[in-house]
């Protein structure tokens, strides 16, 4: 898939889903699009449908009600797709660890390729993550 990934890395199209976050991570993701950080200059674009996406950004602790929907969205995605988890919520559960409504193993819902820690991560660290992803894709 080397040649394919290289072409993918030129312009990553991103789809974003939120699985029970506090929506701060989501706002910071949107912040990336606005003039201060403007990731569109790197060829990254937020798209409206999962069927156009190369990268899936997920946030939140995945509550039990939303987990099947996230799984469904992942299944609808064209492969290969790279799943990037934004925020501490996805990696460790943040302060919601004791919640009765949390999915214990988020990796079983969808396979996650990359974690960005932080609550919320700074936009700079998200950009760095994207740069790293591009680096990996380029081999």
């Amino acid at each position: 898939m080397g040649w394919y990934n290289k072409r993918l890395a030129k312009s990553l199209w991103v789809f974003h889903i939120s699985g029970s976050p506090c929506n701060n991570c989501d706002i910071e993701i949107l912040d990336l699009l606005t003039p201060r950080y403007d990731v569109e200059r790197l060829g990254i674009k937020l798209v409206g449908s999962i069927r156009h996406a190369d990268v899936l950004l997920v946030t939140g602790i995945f509550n039990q009600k939303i987990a099947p929907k996230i799984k469904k969205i992942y299944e609808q995605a064209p492969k290969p797709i790279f799943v990037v988890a934004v925020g501490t919520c996805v990696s460790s559960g943040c302060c919601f660890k004791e919640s009765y409504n949390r999915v214990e193993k988020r990796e079983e819902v969808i396979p996650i390729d990359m974690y960005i820690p932080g609550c919320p991560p700074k936009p700079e660290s998200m950009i760095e993550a994207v740069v790293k992803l591009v680096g990996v894709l380029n081999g």
Partner: protein
Amino acid sequence: MKANKIPIGPFHPLLEEAEYFELTVDGETVVDIDMEIGWMHRGHEYISEMKTFTQSIYLVERICGICSTSHPIACVHAIEDIDNIEIPVRARYIRTLVGELERIHSHLLWLGLAGHFIGYDTLWMWAWKYREPVLEMFEIISGNRNHYGMMRVGGVAQDLDSAKVVELYKHLDMIEKKMVMISKAAKDDPVLKSRLKGVGVLSHEDAIAYCTVGPTSRASGVPGDVRLDEPTDAYDLVDFNRIVLQNGDVYDKLVVRVLETFESIKIVRQCLDKLTTVTGPVLNNVKEISPGEGIGRYEAPRGEVFHYIRSDGTNRPIRHKVRAPSYVNIPSFKASCKGIPIADALITLASVDPCYCCTERSLKIIDKNHDPCSFDLLKASREKTERIRREINAD
């Protein structure tokens, strides 16, 4: 009458949280709306009973990323209400400063999104661009862009030194200048005016019956504003106005928010002035919380945040109830969405500034005979704006 149902959600392509709406439409007109929530349910009230009082302040901060200081303020008010704890004057100013800065950034955020929904992306980019200096101010104050962690029972966690105050003045002047420009672009734009005037009216009676709060009710002539009704912190020491408008449509909600932003800038400036002169500690040490119950509230950008805490004398609450403003504002869609065209539904749903914006795009219309045809709410909304723009330009 043939009624069609349009499901919206639970995932929407662009924004924040997942919600599910079901619009029942007759031709172009919305006749009923139903909502299903619970996609974001994390069980805060349950978790909070396992945390100490100080820990639960950090927990409630993570209820919502936009009002991430309103919940902690209401929470510490509730704990202070149990024992009538007094806080130092300097801490009162710092609390108000943080709370009002948050209102500025939240209103700017909403303004941008409202522009985006009706196809006015310039406004979106502008509003979000000038929201950045506010986040920078937060970074100066607390070290973090969001989730500031400033509140404590009995005061605030960090003091502000005078070098920081000078920096804050600079940023504030810049924001005020840009706000004047944005408000001109939003308030006096003829397209925006004719697009939003008379859309999604929430009448005065409905606003009272649904117990709505915040800008949603203040645009319908209900004067409630916790900052003035029950002045806590520094709100009785600063001077600002109550903004109440009468029409209840989306345009009035926009104007309320724009005017409130200017009031907030005024308050922030007064707080900064006072912080250069008032000295003293910022935190009273509170050792114990006695048994009892307390109610704390605060005027968040979206309306009244309500916290109820019951303590039994240990270091944990035995009950912690949280009521966010969107919780009472969202049911009012039932009143404001009835009888409006579909193209207006999106902006009406967005107009209460719900803590989720799943209203972005509908997936499918399911016909009575279950004939799915795709229909795009966002596109319908933008097309209407475009039509109005052309008509105005033709005149």
